[in-house]
Protein backbone atom coordinates (compact mmCIF):
# COMPACT_ATOMS: atom_id res chain seq x y z
CA UNK A 1 0.00 0.00 0.00
CA UNK A 2 1.70 3.23 -1.09
CA UNK A 3 2.28 5.80 1.66
CA UNK A 4 0.96 8.71 -0.38
CA UNK A 5 -1.93 9.05 -2.82
CA UNK A 6 -1.14 7.42 -6.17
CA UNK A 7 -3.42 8.27 -9.09
CA UNK A 8 -3.42 5.62 -11.84
CA UNK A 9 -3.30 6.76 -15.48
CA UNK A 10 -6.89 5.54 -15.98
CA UNK A 11 -8.12 7.96 -13.28
CA UNK A 12 -5.98 10.95 -14.18
CA UNK A 13 -7.31 14.20 -15.56
CA UNK A 14 -6.00 17.63 -16.54
CA UNK A 15 -2.28 18.27 -16.13
CA UNK A 16 -1.62 14.79 -14.73
CA UNK A 17 -3.33 13.08 -17.69
CA UNK A 18 -1.21 15.23 -20.03
CA UNK A 19 1.95 14.21 -18.16
CA UNK A 20 1.04 10.52 -18.43
CA UNK A 21 0.35 10.95 -22.16
CA UNK A 22 3.84 12.44 -22.60
CA UNK A 23 5.44 9.53 -20.74
CA UNK A 24 3.48 7.01 -22.84
CA UNK A 25 5.02 8.47 -25.98
CA UNK A 26 8.29 6.77 -25.08
CA UNK A 27 7.21 4.07 -22.57
CA UNK A 28 4.62 1.43 -23.47
CA UNK A 29 3.44 1.30 -19.87
CA UNK A 30 3.62 3.83 -17.06
CA UNK A 31 5.41 2.07 -14.19
CA UNK A 32 4.36 2.49 -10.57
CA UNK A 33 7.55 4.37 -9.81
CA UNK A 34 6.33 7.09 -12.17
CA UNK A 35 2.76 6.89 -10.83
CA UNK A 36 3.91 7.51 -7.24
CA UNK A 37 4.79 11.06 -8.36
CA UNK A 38 1.21 11.67 -9.53
CA UNK A 39 0.54 14.33 -6.88
CA UNK A 40 3.22 16.38 -8.70
CA UNK A 41 2.70 16.01 -12.47
CA UNK A 42 5.99 17.81 -13.16
CA UNK A 43 7.75 14.89 -11.47
CA UNK A 44 5.81 12.36 -13.52
CA UNK A 45 7.46 13.98 -16.56
CA UNK A 46 10.87 14.30 -14.90
CA UNK A 47 10.95 10.70 -13.64
CA UNK A 48 9.90 9.38 -17.05
CA UNK A 49 12.31 11.52 -19.08
CA UNK A 50 15.19 10.88 -16.73
CA UNK A 51 14.71 7.14 -17.14
CA UNK A 52 15.20 7.69 -20.88
CA UNK A 53 18.29 9.90 -20.36
CA UNK A 54 19.75 7.28 -18.01
CA UNK A 55 18.89 4.03 -19.79
CA UNK A 56 18.37 4.73 -23.49
CA UNK A 57 20.85 7.42 -24.47
CA UNK A 58 24.62 7.29 -24.80
CA UNK A 59 27.04 4.53 -25.76
CA UNK A 60 27.22 2.18 -22.76
CA UNK A 61 25.32 -0.98 -23.87
CA UNK A 62 21.84 -1.44 -22.44
CA UNK A 63 22.81 -4.80 -20.96
CA UNK A 64 25.55 -3.09 -18.90
CA UNK A 65 23.10 -0.43 -17.72
CA UNK A 66 20.52 -3.01 -16.65
CA UNK A 67 23.27 -4.99 -14.90
CA UNK A 68 24.30 -1.84 -12.98
CA UNK A 69 20.64 -1.21 -12.10
CA UNK A 70 20.17 -4.74 -10.69
CA UNK A 71 23.48 -4.61 -8.77
CA UNK A 72 22.54 -1.21 -7.32
CA UNK A 73 19.09 -2.41 -6.32
CA UNK A 74 20.48 -5.55 -4.74
CA UNK A 75 23.09 -3.59 -2.80
CA UNK A 76 20.38 -1.19 -1.58
CA UNK A 77 18.11 -4.15 -0.66
CA UNK A 78 15.34 -2.47 -2.66
CA UNK A 79 11.93 -4.10 -2.23
CA UNK A 80 10.51 -2.72 -5.50
Amino acid at each position, binding site marked *: *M*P*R*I*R*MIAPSRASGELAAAYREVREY*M*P*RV*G*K*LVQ*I*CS*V*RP*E*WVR*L*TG*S*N*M*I*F*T*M*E*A*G*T*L*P*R*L*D*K*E*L*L*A*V*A*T*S*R*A*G*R*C*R*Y
Partner: protein
Amino acid sequence: MQAHSVFLQAAGMAAKTVHALTECPETPELTARQAALVTFAEKLTRSPQSVTAADTDALRGVLPDEGDVIEAANVVAGFNFANRVADALDVPCEVPTQFQRHRFTKHLVMSAMSWAIRKRMRLTNRMIGATEPDRVLRDLDDAVRRAGMGRLPSYFQRLRLRPHILEGQAAICSSLLRDTGFPRATVLRISYVISSLNRDDESAQESAYLLTGMRITLQPLDAIVAGQPTNGGLPALLHDALWFVRDVTLHAEQTTDAQVHGLRDHGLTDVQVLNLVLLAASCNARNRLNRALA
Protein backbone atom coordinates in the same frame (compact mmCIF):
# COMPACT_ATOMS: atom_id res chain seq x y z
CA MET B 1 15.09 -5.40 -7.50
CA GLN B 2 12.51 -7.64 -9.21
CA ALA B 3 11.41 -4.89 -11.58
CA HIS B 4 14.98 -4.33 -12.75
CA SER B 5 15.74 -8.06 -13.02
CA VAL B 6 12.94 -8.33 -15.59
CA PHE B 7 14.59 -5.62 -17.67
CA LEU B 8 18.02 -7.25 -17.37
CA GLN B 9 16.55 -10.47 -18.73
CA ALA B 10 14.79 -8.54 -21.48
CA ALA B 11 18.11 -6.87 -22.39
CA GLY B 12 19.60 -10.27 -23.16
CA MET B 13 21.07 -11.79 -20.01
CA ALA B 14 20.12 -15.45 -19.52
CA ALA B 15 17.50 -16.04 -16.81
CA LYS B 16 19.92 -18.40 -15.05
CA THR B 17 22.61 -15.69 -14.86
CA VAL B 18 20.12 -13.07 -13.66
CA HIS B 19 18.98 -15.44 -10.94
CA ALA B 20 22.59 -16.22 -9.94
CA LEU B 21 23.34 -12.48 -9.75
CA THR B 22 20.36 -11.74 -7.54
CA GLU B 23 21.40 -14.59 -5.21
CA CYS B 24 25.09 -13.67 -5.10
CA PRO B 25 26.84 -10.74 -6.82
CA GLU B 26 30.15 -12.63 -6.91
CA THR B 27 28.67 -15.32 -9.14
CA PRO B 28 31.15 -16.90 -11.61
CA GLU B 29 28.42 -16.64 -14.27
CA LEU B 30 29.53 -13.04 -14.94
CA THR B 31 32.36 -11.98 -17.25
CA ALA B 32 35.28 -10.00 -15.79
CA ARG B 33 33.86 -6.76 -17.23
CA GLN B 34 30.41 -7.47 -15.78
CA ALA B 35 31.94 -8.35 -12.41
CA ALA B 36 33.80 -5.01 -12.40
CA LEU B 37 30.56 -3.13 -13.09
CA VAL B 38 28.80 -4.99 -10.28
CA THR B 39 31.64 -4.29 -7.83
CA PHE B 40 31.53 -0.57 -8.66
CA ALA B 41 27.72 -0.41 -8.28
CA GLU B 42 27.81 -2.27 -4.97
CA LYS B 43 30.51 -0.08 -3.42
CA LEU B 44 29.08 3.24 -4.59
CA THR B 45 25.66 2.21 -3.27
CA ARG B 46 26.63 0.59 0.03
CA SER B 47 29.58 2.70 1.11
CA PRO B 48 29.94 5.88 -0.97
CA GLN B 49 32.12 7.25 1.83
CA SER B 50 34.84 4.73 0.97
CA VAL B 51 34.78 5.24 -2.81
CA THR B 52 38.08 6.69 -4.03
CA ALA B 53 39.65 7.59 -7.36
CA ALA B 54 41.01 4.02 -7.48
CA ASP B 55 37.46 2.63 -7.70
CA THR B 56 36.61 4.86 -10.64
CA ASP B 57 39.97 3.99 -12.23
CA ALA B 58 39.05 0.31 -11.95
CA LEU B 59 35.91 1.09 -13.93
CA ARG B 60 37.99 2.97 -16.52
CA GLY B 61 39.96 -0.25 -16.92
CA VAL B 62 36.92 -2.09 -18.32
CA LEU B 63 35.10 0.70 -20.18
CA PRO B 64 36.31 2.16 -23.49
CA ASP B 65 36.05 5.87 -22.67
CA GLU B 66 35.30 8.48 -20.03
CA GLY B 67 31.79 9.06 -21.37
CA ASP B 68 30.91 5.45 -20.57
CA VAL B 69 32.28 5.90 -17.04
CA ILE B 70 29.97 8.88 -16.59
CA GLU B 71 27.03 6.86 -17.92
CA ALA B 72 27.79 3.99 -15.52
CA ALA B 73 28.05 6.32 -12.52
CA ASN B 74 24.82 8.00 -13.59
CA VAL B 75 22.96 4.66 -13.71
CA VAL B 76 24.13 3.82 -10.18
CA ALA B 77 23.20 7.32 -8.93
CA GLY B 78 19.85 7.17 -10.77
CA PHE B 79 18.89 3.87 -9.16
CA ASN B 80 20.04 5.09 -5.76
CA PHE B 81 17.47 7.82 -6.35
CA ALA B 82 14.69 5.60 -7.73
CA ASN B 83 15.08 2.82 -5.16
CA ARG B 84 14.90 5.25 -2.25
CA VAL B 85 11.72 6.80 -3.64
CA ALA B 86 10.24 3.31 -4.13
CA ASP B 87 11.14 2.08 -0.63
CA ALA B 88 10.40 5.27 1.30
CA LEU B 89 6.93 5.53 -0.24
CA ASP B 90 6.30 1.76 -0.37
CA VAL B 91 5.62 1.68 -4.10
CA PRO B 92 3.89 -1.63 -4.97
CA CYS B 93 5.97 -4.20 -6.88
CA GLU B 94 5.38 -4.54 -10.61
CA VAL B 95 5.16 -8.34 -10.18
CA PRO B 96 1.82 -8.90 -8.38
CA THR B 97 2.27 -10.38 -4.90
CA GLN B 98 0.06 -13.42 -5.63
CA PHE B 99 2.65 -14.52 -8.21
CA GLN B 100 5.57 -14.12 -5.84
CA ARG B 101 4.64 -16.89 -3.40
CA HIS B 102 6.04 -19.77 -5.45
CA ARG B 103 9.41 -19.70 -7.13
CA PHE B 104 8.10 -21.41 -10.28
CA THR B 105 5.15 -19.03 -10.89
CA LYS B 106 7.36 -16.05 -10.10
CA HIS B 107 9.91 -17.26 -12.65
CA LEU B 108 7.18 -17.76 -15.25
CA VAL B 109 5.67 -14.32 -14.69
CA MET B 110 9.06 -12.61 -14.82
CA SER B 111 9.96 -14.44 -18.05
CA ALA B 112 6.62 -13.42 -19.58
CA MET B 113 7.18 -9.79 -18.54
CA SER B 114 10.70 -9.85 -20.02
CA TRP B 115 9.31 -11.20 -23.28
CA ALA B 116 6.66 -8.46 -23.38
CA ILE B 117 9.28 -5.79 -22.69
CA ARG B 118 11.47 -7.12 -25.51
CA LYS B 119 8.50 -6.98 -27.87
CA ARG B 120 7.28 -3.53 -26.92
CA MET B 121 10.30 -1.54 -25.80
CA ARG B 122 13.38 -0.25 -27.42
CA LEU B 123 16.36 -1.85 -25.67
CA THR B 124 19.12 -0.27 -27.70
CA ASN B 125 20.69 3.14 -27.29
CA ARG B 126 19.48 6.08 -29.32
CA MET B 127 20.67 9.59 -30.02
CA ILE B 128 18.97 12.17 -27.83
CA GLY B 129 19.49 15.84 -28.54
CA ALA B 130 20.54 18.05 -25.64
CA THR B 131 21.05 21.71 -24.92
CA GLU B 132 24.58 23.07 -25.19
CA PRO B 133 26.42 22.30 -21.89
CA ASP B 134 27.73 25.84 -21.30
CA ARG B 135 24.20 27.19 -21.37
CA VAL B 136 22.83 24.44 -19.09
CA LEU B 137 25.63 25.02 -16.57
CA ARG B 138 25.25 28.79 -16.68
CA ASP B 139 21.47 28.65 -16.12
CA LEU B 140 21.81 26.09 -13.35
CA ASP B 141 24.56 28.04 -11.63
CA ASP B 142 22.32 31.13 -11.71
CA ALA B 143 19.38 29.17 -10.29
CA VAL B 144 21.51 27.72 -7.47
CA ARG B 145 22.86 31.15 -6.52
CA ARG B 146 19.44 32.82 -6.70
CA ALA B 147 18.07 30.14 -4.36
CA GLY B 148 20.93 30.86 -1.93
CA MET B 149 22.27 27.31 -2.18
CA GLY B 150 25.93 28.15 -2.73
CA ARG B 151 27.97 26.60 -5.51
CA LEU B 152 27.27 23.76 -7.90
CA PRO B 153 28.92 20.47 -6.90
CA SER B 154 32.09 19.80 -8.93
CA TYR B 155 30.78 16.74 -10.75
CA PHE B 156 28.46 18.88 -12.88
CA GLN B 157 31.46 20.06 -14.91
CA ARG B 158 32.41 16.43 -15.63
CA LEU B 159 28.98 15.78 -17.12
CA ARG B 160 29.84 18.00 -20.11
CA LEU B 161 30.98 14.82 -21.88
CA ARG B 162 27.40 13.55 -21.80
CA PRO B 163 25.15 16.59 -22.41
CA HIS B 164 21.92 14.55 -22.14
CA ILE B 165 22.87 13.44 -18.63
CA LEU B 166 23.84 16.99 -17.69
CA GLU B 167 20.49 18.25 -18.94
CA GLY B 168 18.58 15.56 -17.01
CA GLN B 169 20.47 16.28 -13.79
CA ALA B 170 19.97 20.01 -14.26
CA ALA B 171 16.20 19.58 -14.76
CA ILE B 172 15.90 17.64 -11.49
CA CYS B 173 18.09 20.10 -9.61
CA SER B 174 16.16 23.12 -10.96
CA SER B 175 12.81 21.62 -10.00
CA LEU B 176 13.98 20.97 -6.45
CA LEU B 177 15.44 24.47 -6.17
CA ARG B 178 12.25 26.07 -7.45
CA ASP B 179 9.60 24.25 -5.55
CA THR B 180 10.28 22.04 -2.54
CA GLY B 181 7.73 23.68 -0.27
CA PHE B 182 10.31 23.76 2.54
CA PRO B 183 12.26 26.75 3.88
CA ARG B 184 15.82 27.20 2.60
CA ALA B 185 17.23 26.38 6.04
CA THR B 186 15.39 23.04 6.08
CA VAL B 187 16.69 22.10 2.63
CA LEU B 188 20.23 22.99 3.72
CA ARG B 189 19.88 20.96 6.92
CA ILE B 190 18.70 17.95 4.89
CA SER B 191 21.62 18.37 2.50
CA TYR B 192 24.08 18.68 5.40
CA VAL B 193 22.82 15.54 7.19
CA ILE B 194 22.74 13.36 4.06
CA SER B 195 26.02 14.63 2.59
CA SER B 196 27.72 14.07 5.95
CA LEU B 197 26.38 10.49 6.13
CA ASN B 198 27.66 9.82 2.60
CA ARG B 199 30.93 11.68 3.25
CA ASP B 200 30.45 13.98 0.30
CA ASP B 201 32.68 16.51 2.03
CA GLU B 202 32.34 19.17 -0.63
CA SER B 203 28.52 19.24 -0.37
CA ALA B 204 28.51 18.90 3.44
CA GLN B 205 30.98 21.78 3.82
CA GLU B 206 29.01 24.01 1.45
CA SER B 207 25.78 23.38 3.42
CA ALA B 208 27.61 23.90 6.73
CA TYR B 209 29.03 27.23 5.50
CA LEU B 210 25.58 28.47 4.44
CA LEU B 211 23.89 27.27 7.65
CA THR B 212 26.53 28.86 9.82
CA GLY B 213 26.03 32.11 7.89
CA MET B 214 22.35 31.90 8.89
CA ARG B 215 23.47 31.44 12.53
CA ILE B 216 22.11 27.92 12.61
CA THR B 217 24.06 25.60 14.87
CA LEU B 218 25.27 22.30 13.43
CA GLN B 219 25.37 20.45 16.75
CA PRO B 220 21.87 18.86 16.58
CA LEU B 221 22.50 17.92 12.95
CA ASP B 222 25.81 16.26 13.83
CA ALA B 223 23.99 14.33 16.56
CA ILE B 224 21.49 13.01 14.01
CA VAL B 225 24.33 12.05 11.66
CA ALA B 226 25.93 10.14 14.55
CA GLY B 227 22.58 8.51 15.43
CA GLN B 228 22.46 10.18 18.85
CA PRO B 229 19.48 11.84 20.59
CA THR B 230 19.28 15.56 19.81
CA ASN B 231 18.03 16.57 23.27
CA GLY B 232 15.23 18.78 22.03
CA GLY B 233 17.38 21.17 20.02
CA LEU B 234 15.01 21.10 17.04
CA PRO B 235 11.27 21.68 16.50
CA ALA B 236 9.36 18.36 16.41
CA LEU B 237 8.57 18.38 12.67
CA LEU B 238 12.15 19.22 11.71
CA HIS B 239 13.48 16.59 14.13
CA ASP B 240 11.25 13.84 12.69
CA ALA B 241 11.85 14.92 9.08
CA LEU B 242 15.64 14.83 9.55
CA TRP B 243 15.52 11.39 11.20
CA PHE B 244 13.32 10.22 8.33
CA VAL B 245 15.80 11.41 5.68
CA ARG B 246 18.60 9.79 7.70
CA ASP B 247 16.72 6.48 7.52
CA VAL B 248 15.96 6.97 3.81
CA THR B 249 19.71 7.42 3.31
CA LEU B 250 20.95 4.50 5.39
CA HIS B 251 18.17 1.90 4.97
CA ALA B 252 15.19 3.13 2.99
CA GLU B 253 13.77 -0.40 2.90
CA GLN B 254 13.31 -0.26 6.68
CA THR B 255 11.30 2.97 6.77
CA THR B 256 7.80 2.46 8.11
CA ASP B 257 4.22 3.59 7.60
CA ALA B 258 4.38 4.95 11.16
CA GLN B 259 7.18 7.36 10.22
CA VAL B 260 5.14 8.80 7.37
CA HIS B 261 2.01 8.94 9.57
CA GLY B 262 4.10 10.85 12.10
CA LEU B 263 5.07 13.41 9.46
CA ARG B 264 1.41 13.76 8.51
CA ASP B 265 0.51 14.32 12.17
CA HIS B 266 2.84 17.33 12.03
CA GLY B 267 0.75 18.64 9.12
CA LEU B 268 2.70 17.49 6.05
CA THR B 269 0.58 16.87 2.95
CA ASP B 270 1.12 14.13 0.33
CA VAL B 271 2.93 16.65 -1.86
CA GLN B 272 5.24 17.65 1.01
CA VAL B 273 5.97 14.01 1.90
CA LEU B 274 6.81 13.37 -1.75
CA ASN B 275 9.00 16.48 -1.85
CA LEU B 276 10.85 15.40 1.27
CA VAL B 277 11.54 11.97 -0.25
CA LEU B 278 12.58 13.51 -3.58
CA LEU B 279 14.98 15.85 -1.77
CA ALA B 280 16.50 12.98 0.22
CA ALA B 281 16.75 10.64 -2.77
CA SER B 282 18.24 13.26 -5.08
CA CYS B 283 20.81 14.32 -2.48
CA ASN B 284 21.88 10.66 -2.18
CA ALA B 285 22.23 10.45 -5.97
CA ARG B 286 24.24 13.71 -6.14
CA ASN B 287 26.56 12.59 -3.36
CA ARG B 288 27.32 9.39 -5.27
CA LEU B 289 28.04 11.23 -8.50
CA ASN B 290 30.32 13.59 -6.60
CA ARG B 291 32.16 10.69 -4.90
CA ALA B 292 32.60 8.84 -8.20
CA LEU B 293 33.35 11.69 -10.60
CA ALA B 294 34.52 14.87 -8.83
